[in-house]
């Protein structure tokens, strides 16, 4: 009798272990893929590495891409007329030599080099025309196509407007034509100083019409449904939510001789701490961006690579709010928080205090940084802030103010926002800040409807020119959305984009003056910090290039060295 009672337990245990083995049986095959490559110290080290990214690739269709993850992989498997080089500057890529440019710098004639798609077909001028027309076509509903082309490529904005109004439009009116297979003519609406950056941007990459139309809805839905004309091709990618993908060297790439890396395996790890654990266990050679709590422990470690992003964060001060329409109040707020402490104590990841809109180490003229011309503005200064605060309150006829503050809902942004609240309330007597922590999607929506008083926001550029930041705040500008308006500012921005577009020095000065008006005179926004970025990378990996706009990285010039 007694034995049968034990058997109940025994059976349970047996069943349990059977289930476990059965479940595990399915996917044992894919082992041993990511052997680390650095163990043999010989010179012929395998040119392979594995890396982690913090998100899946939302799309590999260059025409639909809108985020840096997409741009990064599209940028490494594709190529436009220009490509950002190792110094982050655009240089001819699909283009052979310099283009012919007409006198008023609006018509460009490019000669294409002999380059091939990964299926062996030549890359032609028609591929560019097709892709650009597809990007602007209202039927495609691309977010970045019209954003990058509007007001720059001839008739781009016109087509978008017509599409939105349900009126007929003609894609052939877009300022891009194939003169013959190897000659491309691009017409701009007006001169654009940073035209090389534009033509290096993934939204302007070519696409093969025959291939795209053959694939139909399946185009760009997996590695097999894509064509590649860049340094690498994707050999494994199961679609937009895949969490693992593989890039391999593209033998058909025109500059394949200079590409050393044979294979890159990428896996998605969303948790920064887990990524670091995987790196420490030797399971990967490179992590995604580290969350700032992990940065201090790697201070001075040769495996940590750090840089200053061209992204600047600031408080948007919505002038629809009566109090924030007052310049003194805005100045008081802009000077009333300690940015140094925020950057060093709270962010603690290499971020620096920002007393400017156009970031440091971003643009320069003949080697002189944009910042050197303008210096610091709206620095932390409690005394000044208090003076402006008193004056502002008097003008408003009030003794206290309650202002809503729209911030993010991530751990990191909550920390920053509560610090800001504390600083502002402590330094400005009679001020009450109501914190509203919302998800990113909600913040965008409320930015759009201007439903906020103060908002913590940031901006990263899309091309290497200060205008990427400066034109944000023109009256009724697409990204303004805070009711800022100053005719002097508008005038300068218009000049910088118009008549001064071809005179780099004057252009630079105009933008610096515009920035000075925005900050020093108007305190239109309150700059907070410029973001620092950090990753862990195996020291044997050389040649990773990091960019300030478009793709995050280029792997083209990388190599694996022996120890």
């Amino acid at each position, binding site marked *: *009798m007694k034995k049968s*009672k034990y058997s109940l337990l025994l059976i349970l245990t047996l069943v349990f272990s059977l*289930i476990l*083995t059965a479940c595990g049986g399915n996917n044992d095959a894919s*082992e041993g893929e990511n052997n680390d490559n650095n163990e043999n110290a010989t010179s012929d080290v395998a040119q392979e590495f594995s890396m982690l990214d913090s998100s899946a690739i939302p799309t590999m269709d260059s025409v639909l891409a809108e985020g840096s993850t997409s741009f990064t992989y599209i940028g490494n498997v594709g190529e436009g007329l220009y490509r950002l080089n190792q110094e982050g500057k655009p240089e001819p890529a699909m283009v052979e030599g310099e283009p012919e440019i007409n006198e008023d710098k609006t018509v460009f004639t490019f000669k294409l080099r002999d380059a091939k798609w990964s299926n062996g077909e030549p890359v032609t001028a028609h591929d560019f025309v097709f892709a650009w027309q597809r990007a602007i076509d209202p039927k495609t*509903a691309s977010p970045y196509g019209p954003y990058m082309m509007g007001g720059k490529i001839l008739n781009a904005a016109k087509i978008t407007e017509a599409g939105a109004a349900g009126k007929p439009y003609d894609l052939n009116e877009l300022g891009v034509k194939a003169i013959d297979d190897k000659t491309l003519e691009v017409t701009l609406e007006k001169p654009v100083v940073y035209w090389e950056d534009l033509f290096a941007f993934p939204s302007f990459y070519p696409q093969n019409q025959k291939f795209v139309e053959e694939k139909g809805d399946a185009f760009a839905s997996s590695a097999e449904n894509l064509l590649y004309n860049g340094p690498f091709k994707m050999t494994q990618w199961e679609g*937009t939510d895949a969490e693992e993908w593989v890039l391999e060297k593209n033998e058909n790439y025109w500059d394949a001789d200079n590409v050393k890396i044979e294979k890159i395996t990428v896996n998605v790890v*969303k948790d920064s701490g*887990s990524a670091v654990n995987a790196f420490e266990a030797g399971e990967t050679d490179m992590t995604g961006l580290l969350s700032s709590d992990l940065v201090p422990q790697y201070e001075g470690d040769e495996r940590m690579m750090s840089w200053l992003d061209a992204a600047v964060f600031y408080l948007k001060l919505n002038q629809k709010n009566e109090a924030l329409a007052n310049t003194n109040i805005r100045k008081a707020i802009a000077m009333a928080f300690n940015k140094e402490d925020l950057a060093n104590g709270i962010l603690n990841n290499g971020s620096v205090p920002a007393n400017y809109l156009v970031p440091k180490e971003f643009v320069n003229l003949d080697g002189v940084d944009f910042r050197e011309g303008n210096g610091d503005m709206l620095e932390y200064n409690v005394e000044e802030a208090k003076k402006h605060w008193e004056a502002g309150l008097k003008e408003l006829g009030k003794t206290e103010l309650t202002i809503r503050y729209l911030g993010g*809902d991530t751990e990191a942004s909550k920390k920053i926002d509560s610090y800001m609240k504390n600083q502002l309330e402590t330094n400005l007597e009679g001020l009450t800040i109501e914190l509203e922590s919302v998800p990113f999607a909600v913040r965008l929506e409320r930015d759009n409807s201007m439903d906020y008083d103060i908002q913590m926001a940031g901006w990263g550029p899309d091309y290497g020119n200060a205008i990427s930041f400066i034109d944000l705040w023109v009256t009724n500008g697409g990204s303004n959305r805070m009711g800022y308006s100053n005719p002097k500012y508008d005038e300068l921005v218009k000049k910088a984009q118009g008549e001064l577009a071809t005179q780099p020095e004057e252009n630079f000065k105009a933008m610096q003056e515009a920035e000075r008006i925005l900050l020093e005179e108007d305190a239109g926004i309150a700059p907070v910090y410029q973001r620092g970025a950090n990753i862990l990378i195996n020291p044997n990996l050389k040649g990773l290039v990091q960019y300030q706009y478009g793709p995050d990285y280029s792997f083209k010039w990388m190599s694996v060295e022996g120890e």
Partner: protein
Amino acid sequence: MGKYLLQRVFYMVLTLFLIASLTFFLMKVIPGTPFASQNKLSPAQMEIMKAKYGLDQPVPVQYAKYMGNLLKGDFGTSFQFSNRAVGDLMFQRLGPSAQLGFQAMVLGSVLGIFLGVIAALRQNSWIDYGSTFIAVVGKSIPSFVFAGLLQYYIGVKLGWLPVLFWKGFEYTIMPTIALALFPLAIAARFMRTEMIDVLNSDYITLAKAKGASFFDIAFKHALRNALIPVVTVLGPVFVSLMTGSLVIEKIFAIPGLGEQFVTSITLNDYPVIMGTTILYSAMFVLIILIVDILYGVIDPRIRLSGGKK
């Protein structure tokens, strides 16, 4: 039995329909934009984008369209992952989540029930205190802490198991243990209480008086009766484990559904929100039905319909 089942299935479908409808309208009330670069879009572009996803139509029209497609088994296309059918996305991701949930459930409930029974049989002994301690710890340590500790010590320091990913059985061990802690704690605590209750009841005293052996009493008489409430509690726990754990999936980089569900809500990815909600609800109502049927198996006194004919 057949008639009863038919009736239940009808109510299940009705429940799902109500949940889907309610979710659809609630979702439209969530503030936020589904467009990641909205701050860069001009008003004209916004209109074009809205038209593409059918968001320019009045909500009732959108609802009718969605329900129509749903009847055809079409869950729509994700906003955040271009080109990705929500149906494919969900069922592909359900695999790892379900496997992990199932393993954790089996491990957790078997160990938990075992601990609970032992604790009850040896009430107020060190075994009892030990098992209660494990249960309390299991319930109170947040899973991300436990998972993080496992990952660091077993994965990084000792190197016994892979730190991340989902590529074979050994990859599932740490996440399974981390996730099993919760059902283990619940099962152990419930089992102990129920078991003690049953052991103090009259029929057990009678069984003892008749001279039944200790194991007969513990397993034949007590365990079966004590299991009923435990099964009730574990049913819903099972579904929540099967549908994926946000935290565990994120920490161990498992391509599952739990993390995706939360992300889709914060990104206003409407089709994915709808799809996952419907899937979760379907699993819930199904599990509730299974639990009801299990009652009858465990305790013959509970009959689903009018009894034997």
